[in-house]
């Protein structure tokens, strides 16, 4: 994908100036004695696709979950759109945000999970309109219309009345993406979205994600799909043992990894 084609489909306002949407500064995270994140620094610009790779236990999923405050951080700062996530700073002191403010921040950040987590008791359409209607207070009729559009976009318009259990994993994950998009987020987090899928279903989900990237969505993607990183990623970050080992242009990192650990990991997954 050429960068010029990329910027063509983006909204005009940020076609020229790319501001930092996500700023992660010196983030640490402990689970008990276990130091999961050890001083992470990372910036994701508006419209950028940042891909996170690394062995399991490297902290990449934890980092992703910290960005929408599903996990709390032990030290450092995470900012989305210059707003501190989970806290507010007053007179040099951090105050925990009230749950309703955390919920407000999360509305702006879509998340797609490894295990889909569609609401099992609701149909595909009901899954998608749940948050727009319940959280944003949208009317049902326009919400349904929009849901149909999103389903069409992920290629599942004909599955609107199905229950999640009636869909294949790949279909469920595409619905999960549509559900997250229904909240019109500024940022999408993908937590190993294709890891729980049968190999032949991975492609459909990746196609939807590529499409989304082309439309200018800012995305942070934890994945093992190196091909996706190479093709769609604007940056590739390799994490191991709770630190960023190396980061840069995906094609360069994959072709010439600077670090032994990166080389070792890539040789296993490529």
């Amino acid at each position, binding site marked *: 994908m050429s960068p010029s084609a990329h910027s063509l489909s983006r909204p005009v306002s940020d076609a020229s100036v790319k501001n930092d949407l996500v700023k992660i500064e010196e983030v640490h995270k402990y689970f008990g004695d276990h130091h999961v994140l050890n001083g992470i620094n990372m910036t994701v610009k508006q419209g950028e696709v940042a891909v996170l790779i690394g062995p399991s236990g490297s902290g990449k999923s934890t980092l992703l979950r910290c960005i929408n405050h599903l996990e709390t951080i032990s030290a450092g700062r995470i900012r989305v759109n210059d707003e501190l996530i989970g806290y507010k700073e007053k007179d040099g002191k951090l105050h925990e945000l009230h749950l309703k403010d955390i*919920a407000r921040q999360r509305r702006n950040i879509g998340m797609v999970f490894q295990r889909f987590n569609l609401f099992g008791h609701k149909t595909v359409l009901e899954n998608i309109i749940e948050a727009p209607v319940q959280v944003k207070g949208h009317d049902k009729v326009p919400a349904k219309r929009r849901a149909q559009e999103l389903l069409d976009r992920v290629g599942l318009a004909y599955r609107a009345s199905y229950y999640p259990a*009636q869909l294949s994993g790949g279909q469920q994950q595409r619905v999960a993406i549509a559900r997250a998009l229904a909240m019109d987020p500024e940022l999408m987090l993908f937590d190993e979205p294709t890891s729980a899928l049968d190999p032949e279903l991975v492609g459909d989900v990746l196609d939807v994600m590529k499409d989304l990237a082309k439309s200018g969505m800012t995305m942070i993607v934890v994945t093992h799909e190196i091909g996706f990183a190479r093709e769609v990623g604007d940056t590739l970050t390799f994490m191991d043992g709770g630190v960023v080992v190396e980061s840069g242009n995906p094609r360069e990192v994959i072709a010439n990894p600077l670090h032994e650990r990166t080389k070792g990991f890539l040789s296993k997954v490529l």
Partner: protein
Amino acid sequence: MSVTTNNQETTAQRAAPELIKAVRVRHPGRWLGAAIILILAILAVQSLAANPNFHWETFALYVLDANVVTGVGWTLLLTVLSMAIAVTLAVLLAFMRQSDNPIFRWSSWFWVWFFRGTPVYTQLVFWGLVAVLYPKINLGVPFGPELLSLTTQDLLNAFWAAVLGLALNESAYLAEIFRAGLKSVDKGQIEAAEALGMRGTKIMWRIVLPQAMRVIVPPTGNETIGMLKTTSLVLAVPFTLDLTFVTNTLANRSYLPIPLLIVAAFWYLVVTSILMIGQHFIEKHYGKGIDTAARITVNPSALQTARATADPAPTTPTPEESGR
């Protein structure tokens, strides 16, 4: 879709497969067992009909007696009201037990500990005696002026004392059933709802509880049927209009306890059967998307494949995903 095209070609070329028609395994033990049970059943029915001590004519006389039917009504009313209150309390207690607020967690735990730990009979006697403990109930500003004063006897008559006693005791058991149900829902459901910007009570009501109901309904149906029969203890309050008390009184009057026990048993069975039908529909409602899903899945996709390929062979495996 290359698999199905292949299939189309091969079935066009080959004849339909000969289906297996195997000789069934014989089960002589089943026949023997069935014969024994049938003989026992016939003997039982014969003895029921032939033994004059059952006094079926007395059964027939009292089964539709106005007092008995009213007794059924009171029993049903006690069951429904106390279950309704118990379910409401149980939802509250289960939510409190999962709360981040330690005071809520502990008070919920304490409630369950107390009401589950004392006999329901004792509790019913106690509620009957509340009027002795607190003859008057005063509403007013604490340590301040009194606004309203009521006699406990008027406020909490025998019926409401019975309902309260049954409901509070039941709420403790149901709270544990609801807690187990809430715990059975995958944590990923809560995370997904949180990630969408939903919170607390809304997640519980709209996402967790409806899915927990699948697990909650069967044991709650069990408890409801149990409650139907526990209402026979309201004599302890004393409340004296329920089915058991009425049939006992009639039995004492006529010196024929057996036919009146059968009258009571008959009505308990009738009400239980009605409750079971209700439970069936409630289970069906909350099973949607999970219990009913598998059945529907097989059919449309099989139908779709059949239509797409126009393949007469019924043994063709349906592809997981038919593409976009």
